[in-house]
């Protein structure tokens, strides 16, 4: 049974600077143009504002740190300037090499590493980092709500449903990856669950969704129960049984899409 004691302290998220700012467009301004993570950052700031509105002394807020892998001093300066320019709440900056990523994230107690690059996310998951896709929102409307999608296929995994995963010819290794991803995301889920519970079912600045792409309805039910055990109440749930996901994703328009690397795994399943 999950420890329901109030976890004080911030919920740490890590972003990469090339998602926050667009480094490819040429600009004469001193600040860098906005990148894909912008709507995400704004949504996170909205959540924080609403949390503080309810409780001035709220310690469970989002804190975003910015990771930069390799770049020139010039670009480093621009990044810091740009963050100031757009008035973004970035807690810390880390300029580190790729190999140092895991340590940097761990020492900062980062609960979720976000990237718009699927391969980046997949690699991070493989090295045991809790990571998710920063979804490329089709429009840049700033929503008053942070939307997070969790994969029901991964969360719905349990010893009971193991048989159906084996039936679908996922290898032992792939099963292990699914199990590991599920364990990995728990800390993030527990904290965001506590945040979500600061608000009621309506008018919440956080919207939690579960998307089951090929698992059965029982896998979906299992995912919902798992999240409930972890203290995370789900708002929207979709079960597709193989139907294309992108029409649904276009409507939900999430900021964060956590699929535990499952999407990549399905491709592997067809090759084997």
């Amino acid at each position, binding site marked *: 049974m999950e420890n329901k004691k109030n976890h004080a302290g911030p919920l740490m998220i890590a972003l990469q600077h090339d998602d926050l700012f667009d480094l490819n467009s040429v600009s004469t301004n001193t600040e860098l143009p906005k990148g894909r993570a912008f709507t995400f950052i704004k949504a996170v700031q909205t959540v924080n504002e609403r949390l503080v509105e309810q409780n001035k002394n709220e310690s469970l807020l989002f804190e975003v740190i910015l990771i930069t892998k390799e770049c020139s001093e010039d670009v480093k300066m621009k990044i810091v300037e740009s963050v100031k320019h757009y008035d973004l709440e970035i807690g810390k900056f880390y300029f580190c090499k790729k190999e140092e990523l895991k340590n940097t994230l761990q020492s900062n107690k980062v609960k979720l590493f976000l990237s718009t690059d699927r391969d980046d996310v997949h690699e991070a998951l493989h090295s045991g980092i809790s990571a998710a896709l920063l979804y490329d929102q089709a429009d840049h409307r700033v929503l008053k709500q942070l939307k997070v999608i969790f994969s029901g296929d991964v969360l719905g995994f349990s010893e009971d449903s193991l048989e159906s995963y084996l039936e*679908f010819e996922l290898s032992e290794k792939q099963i292990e990856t699914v199990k590991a991803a599920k364990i990995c995301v728990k800390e993030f889920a527990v904290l965001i669950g506590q945040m979500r519970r600061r608000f009621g079912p309506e008018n919440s600045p956080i919207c939690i969704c579960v998307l089951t792409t090929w698992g059965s309805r029982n896998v979906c039910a299992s995912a919902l129960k798992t999240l409930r055990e972890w203290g995370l109440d789900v708002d929207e749930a979709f079960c597709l049984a193989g139907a294309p996901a992108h029409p649904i994703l276009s409507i939900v328009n999430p900021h964060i899409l956590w699929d535990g690397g499952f999407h990549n795994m399905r491709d592997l399943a067809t090759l084997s």
Partner: protein
Amino acid sequence: MSNPDGSERAGQSNYDSSEEKDWAAVKALFDNSKTTKKPRPPKPSNAVTIAVSSRTLFNMIKERKVFEEEGLERYVAHQLELEDQPFPPGVSFPFVKALMNVNARLRDLYPDSEELFDIVLMTNNHAQVGVRLINSINHYDLTIERFCMTGGESPIGYLKAYMTNLYLSKDSMKVQEAIEEGIAAATMFTGDSENELSDTQLRVAFDGDAVLFSDESEIIVKEHGLDTFFKHEKEFENKPLAQGPLKCFLEALGKLQRKFYAKNQRINCPIRTYLVTARSAASAGARVLKTLRSWGLEVDEALFLAGAPKGPLLQKIKPHIFFDDQMFHIEGAQELGTIAAHVPYGIGQKYHKGKRIETSDAEKK
């Protein structure tokens, strides 16, 4: 739905081919499944997708009361308390079972085809109520593998995303919105008594004007009277009527019927369609039949009532669902135990029992 930024996300044609890849992968996964207990759900673009709301599929009257009297939070808590108790069947339950029966027959005749009914649960409920809904679906062993729990958001966008061919709900506002977006939809009501329905044949009854056809002729009746109407229909007998909101659903049913005919199953075809219209055969019936013919559609039985009440006839037909645009006929059908669904479309919404309603009342309907 394609992205303005084309660089990392694929353009539309790449999407389609990666979708094909995904579908092929899913197909392969299901086909390789060692215990083929469950049949593979069809690809949405090949299937006839019926979206039913939770309150039409199941009887949730008691729970609804809690929601209305005590609010959302108490409602959700109440549902969680009763999670292991399956809901009793609702108004669309017989219709859903009949669809499942048709699917079983289609799979027998065409084991590899994806031209089947696909039933999707489309509900406004929060996902936490989902566990109880899934438990209930399991309890009745319904083949509903796809669902969408919108947590309070409008279902309209999702209806399109799930490629819905017909949407059934108890909420007339959502139904109206769906129709305005070009999706066939109808509002269902809790029935009084129910007639014993066939469990081997799906029977669907349609009203004609403002359901299969547009309301153009109905406007003439309402605004100029019956005589003008008869004259008009005779004069324009050979001009097909424009289509109404449920024409495409009839078309979808016809397509599946022809699959049975192709295998010599016309006599025991598990789908039967009925046109139940207040028109009379002699004066206004020809135009209707000619319109259907011009669309390449058929109904198995066309019943012209010449203004007589529909209730008794429907009681004999025993359809799993009857679509009409006028509440007067819906009520008449229900009084004699028929499951009736209201199509909120056209001029009929501004009238009740032949009298024009005040605009503000009309908006409430």
